[in-house]
Protein backbone atom coordinates (compact mmCIF):
# COMPACT_ATOMS: atom_id res chain seq x y z
CA UNK A 1 0.00 0.00 0.00
CA UNK A 2 2.06 2.97 -1.13
CA UNK A 3 1.13 6.66 -0.92
CA UNK A 4 -0.58 6.95 -4.26
CA UNK A 5 -2.87 4.01 -3.49
CA UNK A 6 -3.86 5.61 -0.23
CA UNK A 7 -4.54 8.92 -1.95
CA UNK A 8 -6.49 7.14 -4.68
CA UNK A 9 -8.61 5.33 -2.07
CA UNK A 10 -9.39 8.51 -0.21
CA UNK A 11 -10.30 10.51 -3.32
CA UNK A 12 -12.36 7.59 -4.69
CA UNK A 13 -14.35 7.51 -1.48
CA UNK A 14 -14.68 11.30 -1.56
CA UNK A 15 -15.90 11.25 -5.20
CA UNK A 16 -18.40 8.43 -4.72
CA UNK A 17 -19.79 9.94 -1.51
CA UNK A 18 -20.12 13.43 -2.96
CA UNK A 19 -21.62 12.05 -6.24
CA UNK A 20 -24.26 10.20 -4.21
CA UNK A 21 -24.93 13.39 -2.25
CA UNK A 22 -25.29 15.35 -5.47
CA UNK A 23 -27.88 12.91 -6.65
CA UNK A 24 -29.82 12.62 -3.38
CA UNK A 25 -29.76 16.02 -1.56
CA UNK A 26 -33.06 17.86 -1.65
CA UNK A 27 -31.46 21.31 -1.54
CA UNK A 28 -30.32 22.19 -5.04
CA UNK A 29 -27.50 24.55 -3.99
CA UNK A 30 -26.08 21.81 -1.81
CA UNK A 31 -26.28 19.52 -4.80
CA UNK A 32 -24.24 22.05 -6.81
CA UNK A 33 -21.71 22.38 -4.01
CA UNK A 34 -21.39 18.63 -3.69
CA UNK A 35 -20.79 18.55 -7.45
CA UNK A 36 -17.93 20.99 -6.88
CA UNK A 37 -16.48 18.66 -4.25
CA UNK A 38 -16.72 15.78 -6.76
CA UNK A 39 -14.95 17.94 -9.34
CA UNK A 40 -12.12 18.62 -6.91
CA UNK A 41 -11.89 14.86 -6.30
CA UNK A 42 -11.56 14.32 -10.04
CA UNK A 43 -8.87 17.00 -10.16
CA UNK A 44 -6.89 15.02 -7.61
CA UNK A 45 -7.32 11.93 -9.78
CA UNK A 46 -5.91 13.79 -12.74
CA UNK A 47 -2.99 14.93 -10.60
CA UNK A 48 -2.45 11.26 -9.64
CA UNK A 49 -2.47 10.39 -13.32
CA UNK A 50 0.10 13.16 -13.81
CA UNK A 51 -2.21 14.87 -16.34
CA UNK A 52 -1.39 18.29 -14.89
CA UNK A 53 -2.97 20.31 -17.67
CA UNK A 54 -6.26 18.40 -17.30
CA UNK A 55 -6.26 18.94 -13.55
CA UNK A 56 -5.79 22.69 -13.86
CA UNK A 57 -8.23 23.02 -16.75
CA UNK A 58 -10.74 20.96 -14.76
CA UNK A 59 -10.53 23.46 -11.94
CA UNK A 60 -10.63 26.53 -14.21
CA UNK A 61 -13.41 25.27 -16.49
CA UNK A 62 -15.58 23.19 -14.25
CA UNK A 63 -15.20 24.78 -10.87
CA UNK A 64 -14.53 28.30 -12.12
CA UNK A 65 -17.21 28.48 -14.78
CA UNK A 66 -19.66 25.59 -14.99
CA UNK A 67 -20.30 25.16 -11.27
CA UNK A 68 -20.85 28.87 -10.88
CA UNK A 69 -23.17 28.79 -13.90
CA UNK A 70 -25.10 26.05 -12.16
CA UNK A 71 -25.42 28.07 -9.01
CA UNK A 72 -26.58 31.06 -11.07
CA UNK A 73 -29.16 28.87 -12.82
CA UNK A 74 -30.36 27.39 -9.54
CA UNK A 75 -30.71 30.88 -8.05
CA UNK A 76 -32.66 32.12 -11.05
CA UNK A 77 -35.06 29.22 -11.30
CA UNK A 78 -36.31 28.86 -7.71
CA UNK A 79 -39.38 30.47 -6.35
CA UNK A 80 -38.24 30.11 -2.75
CA UNK A 81 -34.78 29.41 -1.48
CA UNK A 82 -35.36 25.94 -0.09
CA UNK A 83 -36.80 23.37 -2.48
CA UNK A 84 -39.68 21.44 -1.06
CA UNK A 85 -40.98 17.98 -1.71
CA UNK A 86 -39.19 14.86 -2.76
CA UNK A 87 -36.57 15.42 -5.42
CA UNK A 88 -36.95 12.00 -6.91
CA UNK A 89 -39.66 11.36 -9.51
CA UNK A 90 -41.95 8.40 -9.38
CA UNK A 91 -39.89 6.12 -11.57
CA UNK A 92 -36.77 6.47 -9.41
CA UNK A 93 -36.77 2.80 -8.40
CA UNK A 94 -36.69 1.66 -12.00
CA UNK A 95 -33.99 4.31 -12.66
CA UNK A 96 -31.93 2.90 -9.81
CA UNK A 97 -32.32 -0.60 -11.17
CA UNK A 98 -31.34 0.52 -14.64
CA UNK A 99 -28.21 2.35 -13.42
CA UNK A 100 -27.20 -0.73 -11.40
CA UNK A 101 -27.77 -2.83 -14.52
CA UNK A 102 -25.56 -0.45 -16.51
CA UNK A 103 -22.91 -0.59 -13.78
CA UNK A 104 -23.12 -4.38 -13.75
CA UNK A 105 -22.73 -4.63 -17.52
CA UNK A 106 -19.78 -2.21 -17.46
CA UNK A 107 -18.15 -4.33 -14.76
CA UNK A 108 -18.79 -7.44 -16.87
CA UNK A 109 -17.07 -5.73 -19.77
CA UNK A 110 -14.16 -4.77 -17.56
CA UNK A 111 -13.92 -8.24 -16.13
CA UNK A 112 -13.33 -9.69 -19.54
CA UNK A 113 -11.33 -6.78 -20.99
CA UNK A 114 -7.66 -7.86 -21.13
CA UNK A 115 -6.33 -4.37 -20.55
CA UNK A 116 -7.63 -3.92 -17.04
CA UNK A 117 -4.73 -5.26 -15.06
CA UNK A 118 -2.03 -3.16 -16.69
CA UNK A 119 0.22 -0.88 -14.62
CA UNK A 120 1.21 2.67 -15.40
CA UNK A 121 4.43 3.20 -17.35
CA UNK A 122 7.06 5.68 -16.13
CA UNK A 123 6.53 9.26 -17.21
CA UNK A 124 9.78 10.91 -16.25
CA UNK A 125 11.40 13.37 -18.59
CA UNK A 126 8.59 13.75 -21.11
CA UNK A 127 7.11 17.19 -21.27
CA UNK A 128 3.51 16.08 -21.69
CA UNK A 129 2.31 19.70 -21.87
CA UNK A 130 4.52 20.42 -24.93
CA UNK A 131 3.36 17.18 -26.58
CA UNK A 132 -0.27 18.03 -25.84
CA UNK A 133 0.15 21.54 -27.26
CA UNK A 134 1.68 20.17 -30.44
CA UNK A 135 -0.94 17.40 -30.74
CA UNK A 136 -3.68 20.01 -30.48
CA UNK A 137 -2.42 22.21 -33.30
CA UNK A 138 -0.39 19.96 -35.63
CA UNK A 139 -2.36 19.33 -38.83
CA UNK A 140 -1.86 15.57 -38.93
CA UNK A 141 -2.98 15.11 -35.29
CA UNK A 142 -6.00 16.83 -33.72
CA UNK A 143 -6.23 20.31 -35.21
CA UNK A 144 -9.62 19.62 -36.84
CA UNK A 145 -11.43 18.49 -33.64
CA UNK A 146 -9.79 21.45 -31.86
CA UNK A 147 -11.17 23.90 -34.46
CA UNK A 148 -14.57 22.23 -34.48
CA UNK A 149 -14.67 22.42 -30.69
CA UNK A 150 -13.93 26.14 -30.90
CA UNK A 151 -16.75 26.60 -33.43
CA UNK A 152 -19.02 24.58 -31.11
CA UNK A 153 -18.18 26.87 -28.20
CA UNK A 154 -18.88 29.93 -30.38
CA UNK A 155 -22.21 28.48 -31.43
CA UNK A 156 -23.13 27.63 -27.85
CA UNK A 157 -22.15 31.13 -26.78
CA UNK A 158 -24.33 32.75 -29.44
CA UNK A 159 -27.13 30.27 -28.77
CA UNK A 160 -27.22 30.90 -25.06
CA UNK A 161 -27.10 34.67 -25.61
CA UNK A 162 -29.85 34.48 -28.21
CA UNK A 163 -32.16 32.38 -26.01
CA UNK A 164 -31.57 34.60 -23.01
CA UNK A 165 -31.74 37.78 -25.10
CA UNK A 166 -35.25 37.10 -26.37
CA UNK A 167 -36.46 36.60 -22.93
CA UNK A 168 -34.84 39.84 -21.77
CA UNK A 169 -36.52 41.88 -24.56
CA UNK A 170 -39.86 40.37 -23.70
CA UNK A 171 -39.37 41.08 -20.07
CA UNK A 172 -38.46 44.71 -21.02
CA UNK A 173 -41.73 45.40 -22.82
Amino acid sequence: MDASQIIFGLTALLIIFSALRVVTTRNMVHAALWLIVTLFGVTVLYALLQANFLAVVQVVVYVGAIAILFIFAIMLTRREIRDSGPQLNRGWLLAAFISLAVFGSLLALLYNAPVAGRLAGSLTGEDTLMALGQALVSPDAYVLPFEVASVLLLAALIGAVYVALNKKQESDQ
Partner: protein
Amino acid sequence: MNFWKDPINVAADWLKNVFTGWGLTDPYATALVYLLGAFTMVALVMLLDVFLVWIERKVVARFQDRVGPNRVGPFGLIQPFADIIKLLIKEDITPAGADKVVYNLAPVLSLASVLLLWAILPLSALVYGVDLNVAVLYLVAAGALGTLAVIMAGWSSNNKYALLGAFRTVAQMISFEIPMVVALLIPTILSGSMSLKTVVERQDIWYVILAPLGFIIFLISAIAELGRAPFDLNEAESEIVAGFHIEYSGMKFGLFYAGELLHAFTFGGFMAVLFFGGYRFFGLEQIHPLVAVFILMIKALLGYWVIMWIKYTVPRIRIDHMLAFNWKFLTPMAFALLVVTAVMHKLLSGTQPWVYALGMFLSNVVLLLAALEILRTSARNQRRQEEAALSAIAQTSSH
Protein backbone atom coordinates in the same frame (compact mmCIF):
# COMPACT_ATOMS: atom_id res chain seq x y z
CA MET B 1 24.91 21.26 -1.14
CA ASN B 2 26.33 23.18 1.69
CA PHE B 3 24.04 25.00 4.08
CA TRP B 4 25.19 28.36 2.87
CA LYS B 5 24.25 27.85 -0.73
CA ASP B 6 20.93 26.11 -0.23
CA PRO B 7 19.85 26.39 3.41
CA ILE B 8 16.21 25.27 2.95
CA ASN B 9 16.89 22.08 1.04
CA VAL B 10 19.69 21.17 3.44
CA ALA B 11 17.30 21.65 6.34
CA ALA B 12 14.66 19.59 4.54
CA ASP B 13 17.05 16.67 3.99
CA TRP B 14 18.21 16.87 7.57
CA LEU B 15 14.63 16.71 8.79
CA LYS B 16 13.84 13.83 6.51
CA ASN B 17 16.74 11.86 7.91
CA VAL B 18 15.42 12.57 11.35
CA PHE B 19 12.03 11.15 10.45
CA THR B 20 13.46 8.06 8.76
CA GLY B 21 15.47 7.67 11.86
CA TRP B 22 12.23 7.61 13.78
CA GLY B 23 11.22 4.56 11.71
CA LEU B 24 8.97 6.18 9.09
CA THR B 25 9.37 4.61 5.70
CA ASP B 26 10.71 6.89 3.01
CA PRO B 27 7.47 8.04 1.29
CA TYR B 28 5.85 8.92 4.57
CA ALA B 29 8.94 10.80 5.60
CA THR B 30 9.01 12.85 2.40
CA ALA B 31 5.26 13.47 2.73
CA LEU B 32 5.78 14.72 6.28
CA VAL B 33 8.67 16.94 5.26
CA TYR B 34 6.61 18.51 2.44
CA LEU B 35 3.82 19.08 4.95
CA LEU B 36 6.11 20.84 7.32
CA GLY B 37 7.58 22.93 4.53
CA ALA B 38 4.07 24.03 3.55
CA PHE B 39 3.30 24.97 7.13
CA THR B 40 6.38 27.12 7.45
CA MET B 41 5.55 28.86 4.13
CA VAL B 42 1.99 29.60 5.37
CA ALA B 43 3.23 30.88 8.71
CA LEU B 44 5.71 33.24 7.09
CA VAL B 45 3.06 34.51 4.66
CA MET B 46 0.53 35.11 7.46
CA LEU B 47 3.17 37.04 9.34
CA LEU B 48 3.80 39.06 6.24
CA ASP B 49 0.04 39.63 6.01
CA VAL B 50 -0.03 41.27 9.39
CA PHE B 51 2.81 43.56 8.30
CA LEU B 52 0.82 44.38 5.15
CA VAL B 53 -2.10 45.68 7.26
CA TRP B 54 0.24 48.21 8.73
CA ILE B 55 1.71 49.17 5.39
CA GLU B 56 -1.76 49.59 3.99
CA ARG B 57 -2.92 51.96 6.68
CA LYS B 58 0.35 53.99 6.61
CA VAL B 59 0.38 54.39 2.82
CA VAL B 60 -3.33 55.26 2.70
CA ALA B 61 -2.72 57.94 5.31
CA ARG B 62 0.24 59.38 3.46
CA PHE B 63 -1.90 59.50 0.28
CA GLN B 64 -4.61 61.33 2.17
CA ASP B 65 -1.97 63.72 3.54
CA ARG B 66 -2.20 62.46 7.10
CA VAL B 67 0.27 60.57 9.28
CA GLY B 68 -1.52 57.31 9.83
CA PRO B 69 -1.20 55.14 13.01
CA ASN B 70 1.84 56.25 15.06
CA ARG B 71 0.53 55.99 18.58
CA VAL B 72 0.67 52.22 19.13
CA GLY B 73 4.36 51.30 19.24
CA PRO B 74 7.08 53.01 17.28
CA PHE B 75 5.60 54.33 13.98
CA GLY B 76 2.33 52.47 14.88
CA LEU B 77 3.87 49.06 14.19
CA ILE B 78 1.79 47.38 16.85
CA GLN B 79 -1.50 48.77 15.29
CA PRO B 80 -2.19 45.58 13.23
CA PHE B 81 -1.95 43.42 16.25
CA ALA B 82 -4.34 45.77 18.00
CA ASP B 83 -6.78 45.37 15.08
CA ILE B 84 -6.50 41.56 15.20
CA ILE B 85 -7.13 41.48 18.90
CA LYS B 86 -10.13 43.80 18.38
CA LEU B 87 -11.57 41.41 15.71
CA LEU B 88 -10.98 38.34 17.90
CA ILE B 89 -12.81 39.94 20.84
CA LYS B 90 -15.77 41.01 18.71
CA GLU B 91 -18.94 38.91 18.98
CA ASP B 92 -19.23 36.37 16.21
CA ILE B 93 -22.81 36.65 14.83
CA THR B 94 -24.31 34.07 12.41
CA PRO B 95 -27.44 35.30 10.63
CA ALA B 96 -30.65 33.26 11.12
CA GLY B 97 -31.41 30.87 8.27
CA ALA B 98 -27.83 31.03 7.10
CA ASP B 99 -26.51 27.78 5.73
CA LYS B 100 -24.09 27.04 8.64
CA VAL B 101 -21.61 24.82 6.82
CA VAL B 102 -21.34 26.95 3.69
CA TYR B 103 -21.42 30.20 5.75
CA ASN B 104 -18.43 29.12 7.82
CA LEU B 105 -16.54 27.56 4.95
CA ALA B 106 -16.64 30.71 2.73
CA PRO B 107 -13.98 32.86 4.52
CA VAL B 108 -11.67 29.87 4.90
CA LEU B 109 -11.89 29.16 1.17
CA SER B 110 -11.22 32.80 0.18
CA LEU B 111 -7.99 32.88 2.28
CA ALA B 112 -7.06 29.35 1.12
CA SER B 113 -7.30 30.40 -2.55
CA VAL B 114 -4.71 33.13 -1.86
CA LEU B 115 -2.38 30.86 0.10
CA LEU B 116 -2.54 28.25 -2.69
CA LEU B 117 -0.99 30.85 -5.00
CA TRP B 118 2.24 30.96 -2.93
CA ALA B 119 2.93 27.30 -3.83
CA ILE B 120 4.01 28.17 -7.34
CA LEU B 121 5.70 31.56 -6.61
CA PRO B 122 9.50 31.00 -7.24
CA LEU B 123 11.14 32.87 -4.34
CA SER B 124 14.67 32.14 -5.60
CA ALA B 125 16.43 29.84 -7.99
CA LEU B 126 16.33 26.96 -5.52
CA VAL B 127 13.63 28.02 -3.10
CA TYR B 128 10.17 27.49 -4.49
CA GLY B 129 7.07 25.54 -3.60
CA VAL B 130 6.63 23.33 -6.64
CA ASP B 131 7.71 23.79 -10.24
CA LEU B 132 4.38 23.05 -11.95
CA ASN B 133 4.66 23.06 -15.74
CA VAL B 134 1.09 24.53 -15.82
CA ALA B 135 1.78 27.12 -13.11
CA VAL B 136 0.21 30.02 -15.07
CA LEU B 137 -3.11 28.17 -15.38
CA TYR B 138 -2.81 27.11 -11.70
CA LEU B 139 -2.85 30.83 -10.93
CA VAL B 140 -6.13 31.22 -12.80
CA ALA B 141 -7.56 28.10 -11.13
CA ALA B 142 -6.82 29.55 -7.70
CA GLY B 143 -8.65 32.69 -8.85
CA ALA B 144 -11.65 30.49 -9.72
CA LEU B 145 -11.59 29.11 -6.14
CA GLY B 146 -11.81 32.71 -4.88
CA THR B 147 -14.91 33.28 -7.01
CA LEU B 148 -16.47 30.18 -5.50
CA ALA B 149 -15.78 31.47 -1.98
CA VAL B 150 -17.51 34.76 -2.84
CA ILE B 151 -20.63 32.96 -4.09
CA MET B 152 -20.80 30.67 -1.07
CA ALA B 153 -20.49 33.68 1.21
CA GLY B 154 -23.09 35.66 -0.69
CA TRP B 155 -25.66 32.84 -0.82
CA SER B 156 -25.20 31.31 2.62
CA SER B 157 -25.66 34.59 4.51
CA ASN B 158 -29.35 34.46 3.62
CA ASN B 159 -29.35 38.15 2.77
CA LYS B 160 -30.75 39.49 -0.50
CA TYR B 161 -28.14 42.24 -0.70
CA ALA B 162 -25.33 39.82 0.03
CA LEU B 163 -26.59 37.59 -2.74
CA LEU B 164 -26.82 40.55 -5.21
CA GLY B 165 -23.38 41.77 -4.18
CA ALA B 166 -21.99 38.28 -4.64
CA PHE B 167 -23.55 38.01 -8.13
CA ARG B 168 -22.04 41.33 -9.18
CA THR B 169 -18.61 40.46 -7.80
CA VAL B 170 -18.68 37.08 -9.49
CA ALA B 171 -19.77 38.64 -12.81
CA GLN B 172 -16.89 41.13 -12.55
CA MET B 173 -14.28 38.49 -11.56
CA ILE B 174 -15.31 36.07 -14.32
CA SER B 175 -15.40 38.80 -16.96
CA PHE B 176 -11.89 40.03 -16.09
CA GLU B 177 -10.55 36.50 -15.92
CA ILE B 178 -10.43 36.35 -19.72
CA PRO B 179 -8.14 39.38 -20.34
CA MET B 180 -5.97 38.14 -17.38
CA VAL B 181 -5.60 34.69 -18.94
CA VAL B 182 -4.63 36.27 -22.25
CA ALA B 183 -2.20 38.65 -20.54
CA LEU B 184 -0.66 35.63 -18.74
CA LEU B 185 -0.23 33.90 -22.12
CA ILE B 186 2.12 36.65 -23.31
CA PRO B 187 5.02 35.75 -20.90
CA THR B 188 4.27 32.10 -21.78
CA ILE B 189 4.80 32.90 -25.47
CA LEU B 190 7.92 34.95 -24.77
CA SER B 191 9.47 32.37 -22.44
CA GLY B 192 8.09 29.31 -24.18
CA SER B 193 6.85 27.59 -21.02
CA MET B 194 4.10 27.94 -18.45
CA SER B 195 6.15 27.17 -15.35
CA LEU B 196 7.09 30.37 -13.55
CA LYS B 197 10.61 29.12 -12.71
CA THR B 198 11.51 28.82 -16.41
CA VAL B 199 9.74 32.15 -17.09
CA VAL B 200 12.08 33.84 -14.61
CA GLU B 201 15.16 32.00 -15.89
CA ARG B 202 14.46 32.96 -19.52
CA GLN B 203 13.62 36.54 -18.60
CA ASP B 204 16.97 38.07 -19.55
CA ILE B 205 15.20 41.21 -20.82
CA TRP B 206 12.35 42.12 -18.51
CA TYR B 207 9.08 41.23 -20.23
CA VAL B 208 7.64 44.58 -19.21
CA ILE B 209 9.99 46.06 -21.82
CA LEU B 210 9.07 43.47 -24.44
CA ALA B 211 5.30 43.71 -23.77
CA PRO B 212 4.40 46.84 -21.75
CA LEU B 213 0.80 46.71 -23.02
CA GLY B 214 0.62 43.11 -21.74
CA PHE B 215 1.74 44.33 -18.31
CA ILE B 216 -0.89 47.11 -18.33
CA ILE B 217 -3.70 44.66 -19.26
CA PHE B 218 -2.51 42.22 -16.56
CA LEU B 219 -2.42 45.06 -14.00
CA ILE B 220 -5.95 46.24 -14.83
CA SER B 221 -7.45 42.74 -14.80
CA ALA B 222 -5.55 41.82 -11.61
CA ILE B 223 -7.02 44.89 -9.83
CA ALA B 224 -10.47 43.94 -11.12
CA GLU B 225 -9.89 40.32 -9.97
CA LEU B 226 -9.08 41.64 -6.48
CA GLY B 227 -12.15 43.82 -6.46
CA ARG B 228 -10.17 46.85 -5.38
CA ALA B 229 -9.83 50.41 -6.34
CA PRO B 230 -11.59 51.58 -9.43
CA PHE B 231 -13.40 48.22 -9.62
CA ASP B 232 -14.34 47.81 -5.97
CA LEU B 233 -17.95 48.60 -6.66
CA ASN B 234 -19.40 45.58 -4.84
CA GLU B 235 -18.35 46.57 -1.33
CA ALA B 236 -18.42 50.27 -1.91
CA GLU B 237 -20.24 52.03 0.93
CA SER B 238 -22.35 54.20 -1.39
CA GLU B 239 -23.60 51.19 -3.34
CA ILE B 240 -25.06 48.03 -1.81
CA VAL B 241 -23.89 48.14 1.81
CA ALA B 242 -20.63 46.11 2.14
CA GLY B 243 -20.96 43.58 -0.64
CA PHE B 244 -21.10 39.86 0.07
CA HIS B 245 -19.41 39.98 3.47
CA ILE B 246 -22.12 42.03 5.14
CA GLU B 247 -23.23 39.35 7.56
CA TYR B 248 -19.70 38.48 8.53
CA SER B 249 -18.27 39.94 11.72
CA GLY B 250 -15.38 39.22 13.96
CA MET B 251 -12.56 37.04 12.84
CA LYS B 252 -14.54 35.75 9.80
CA PHE B 253 -14.54 39.30 8.45
CA GLY B 254 -10.88 39.47 9.51
CA LEU B 255 -10.10 36.46 7.34
CA PHE B 256 -11.84 38.08 4.34
CA TYR B 257 -9.99 41.39 4.99
CA ALA B 258 -6.59 39.64 5.41
CA GLY B 259 -7.26 37.47 2.39
CA GLU B 260 -7.93 40.51 0.32
CA LEU B 261 -4.74 42.28 1.34
CA LEU B 262 -2.61 39.14 0.87
CA HIS B 263 -4.24 38.58 -2.56
CA ALA B 264 -3.17 42.10 -3.57
CA PHE B 265 0.40 41.49 -2.42
CA THR B 266 0.49 38.06 -4.14
CA PHE B 267 -0.54 39.65 -7.42
CA GLY B 268 2.27 42.23 -6.82
CA GLY B 269 4.62 39.28 -6.51
CA PHE B 270 3.27 37.64 -9.70
CA MET B 271 3.65 40.92 -11.57
CA ALA B 272 7.26 40.97 -10.42
CA VAL B 273 7.83 37.35 -11.47
CA LEU B 274 6.07 37.60 -14.82
CA PHE B 275 7.08 41.04 -16.02
CA PHE B 276 9.93 42.34 -13.80
CA GLY B 277 12.29 39.43 -13.80
CA GLY B 278 11.25 37.84 -10.48
CA TYR B 279 14.20 37.36 -8.17
CA ARG B 280 16.77 38.34 -10.83
CA PHE B 281 18.47 41.69 -10.55
CA PHE B 282 21.47 41.83 -12.85
CA GLY B 283 23.23 38.89 -11.15
CA LEU B 284 22.66 39.99 -7.56
CA GLU B 285 20.56 36.91 -6.91
CA GLN B 286 23.49 34.51 -7.33
CA ILE B 287 25.05 35.74 -4.06
CA HIS B 288 22.68 33.96 -1.82
CA PRO B 289 19.14 32.61 -2.13
CA LEU B 290 17.95 34.93 0.61
CA VAL B 291 19.23 37.93 -1.40
CA ALA B 292 17.09 36.66 -4.31
CA VAL B 293 14.10 36.38 -1.97
CA PHE B 294 14.82 39.90 -0.73
CA ILE B 295 14.93 41.26 -4.34
CA LEU B 296 11.63 39.53 -5.12
CA MET B 297 10.07 40.99 -1.95
CA ILE B 298 11.22 44.50 -2.90
CA LYS B 299 9.69 44.13 -6.41
CA ALA B 300 6.49 42.68 -4.92
CA LEU B 301 6.22 45.61 -2.51
CA LEU B 302 6.71 48.04 -5.41
CA GLY B 303 3.91 46.27 -7.31
CA TYR B 304 1.69 46.36 -4.23
CA TRP B 305 2.46 50.01 -3.87
CA VAL B 306 1.35 50.66 -7.43
CA ILE B 307 -1.94 48.83 -6.73
CA MET B 308 -2.47 50.88 -3.56
CA TRP B 309 -1.52 54.00 -5.46
CA ILE B 310 -4.18 53.30 -8.11
CA LYS B 311 -6.67 52.40 -5.40
CA TYR B 312 -6.51 55.67 -3.61
CA THR B 313 -6.30 57.96 -6.63
CA VAL B 314 -8.63 56.61 -9.29
CA PRO B 315 -12.42 57.21 -8.78
CA ARG B 316 -14.83 54.26 -8.76
CA ILE B 317 -16.28 53.03 -12.13
CA ARG B 318 -19.95 52.05 -12.52
CA ILE B 319 -20.59 48.34 -13.01
CA ASP B 320 -22.01 48.48 -16.53
CA HIS B 321 -19.23 50.85 -17.67
CA MET B 322 -16.72 48.46 -16.15
CA LEU B 323 -18.19 45.42 -17.87
CA ALA B 324 -18.58 47.33 -21.16
CA PHE B 325 -14.94 48.51 -20.84
CA ASN B 326 -13.85 44.93 -20.32
CA TRP B 327 -15.87 43.23 -23.06
CA LYS B 328 -15.73 45.95 -25.70
CA PHE B 329 -12.22 47.30 -25.20
CA LEU B 330 -9.92 45.29 -22.99
CA THR B 331 -10.65 41.77 -24.25
CA PRO B 332 -10.39 42.60 -27.97
CA MET B 333 -7.17 44.54 -27.33
CA ALA B 334 -5.80 41.63 -25.30
CA PHE B 335 -6.52 39.19 -28.13
CA ALA B 336 -4.95 41.61 -30.65
CA LEU B 337 -1.87 41.94 -28.45
CA LEU B 338 -1.61 38.16 -28.11
CA VAL B 339 -1.62 37.79 -31.90
CA VAL B 340 0.86 40.65 -32.41
CA THR B 341 3.27 39.34 -29.78
CA ALA B 342 3.11 35.81 -31.16
CA VAL B 343 3.78 37.04 -34.72
CA MET B 344 6.56 39.50 -33.72
CA HIS B 345 8.19 36.91 -31.44
CA LYS B 346 8.34 34.46 -34.32
CA LEU B 347 9.59 37.16 -36.75
CA LEU B 348 12.28 38.65 -34.54
CA SER B 349 13.42 35.47 -32.74
CA GLY B 350 16.64 35.25 -34.78
CA THR B 351 17.84 38.87 -34.36
CA GLN B 352 20.13 40.55 -31.72
CA PRO B 353 18.51 41.05 -28.36
CA TRP B 354 18.40 44.88 -28.64
CA VAL B 355 16.70 44.73 -32.10
CA TYR B 356 14.32 42.14 -30.71
CA ALA B 357 13.52 44.25 -27.66
CA LEU B 358 13.09 47.43 -29.70
CA GLY B 359 10.83 45.67 -32.23
CA MET B 360 8.61 44.17 -29.58
CA PHE B 361 8.39 47.46 -27.67
CA LEU B 362 7.51 49.45 -30.81
CA SER B 363 4.83 46.91 -31.82
CA ASN B 364 3.22 47.30 -28.43
CA VAL B 365 3.32 51.10 -28.72
CA VAL B 366 1.77 51.00 -32.17
CA LEU B 367 -0.98 48.68 -30.99
CA LEU B 368 -1.70 50.98 -28.05
CA LEU B 369 -1.94 54.04 -30.34
CA ALA B 370 -4.24 52.16 -32.75
CA ALA B 371 -6.50 51.09 -29.87
CA LEU B 372 -6.67 54.66 -28.58
CA GLU B 373 -7.43 55.98 -32.07
CA ILE B 374 -10.33 53.50 -32.49
CA LEU B 375 -11.56 54.50 -29.04
CA ARG B 376 -11.42 58.23 -29.94
CA THR B 377 -13.33 57.84 -33.26
CA SER B 378 -16.06 55.73 -31.68
CA ALA B 379 -16.35 58.23 -28.84
CA ARG B 380 -16.62 61.15 -31.29
CA ASN B 381 -19.36 59.35 -33.29
CA GLN B 382 -21.17 58.69 -30.04
CA ARG B 383 -20.98 62.38 -29.12
CA ARG B 384 -22.15 63.54 -32.57
CA GLN B 385 -25.20 61.25 -32.35
CA GLU B 386 -25.95 62.56 -28.89
CA GLU B 387 -25.73 66.20 -30.09
CA ALA B 388 -27.88 65.43 -33.16
CA ALA B 389 -30.50 63.89 -30.89
CA LEU B 390 -30.33 66.87 -28.58
CA SER B 391 -30.54 69.43 -31.43
CA ALA B 392 -33.49 67.54 -32.88
CA ILE B 393 -35.27 67.67 -29.53
CA ALA B 394 -34.33 71.37 -29.31
CA GLN B 395 -35.86 72.07 -32.72
CA THR B 396 -39.06 70.22 -32.05
CA SER B 397 -39.49 71.96 -28.74
CA SER B 398 -38.71 75.40 -30.31
CA HIS B 399 -41.63 75.11 -32.81
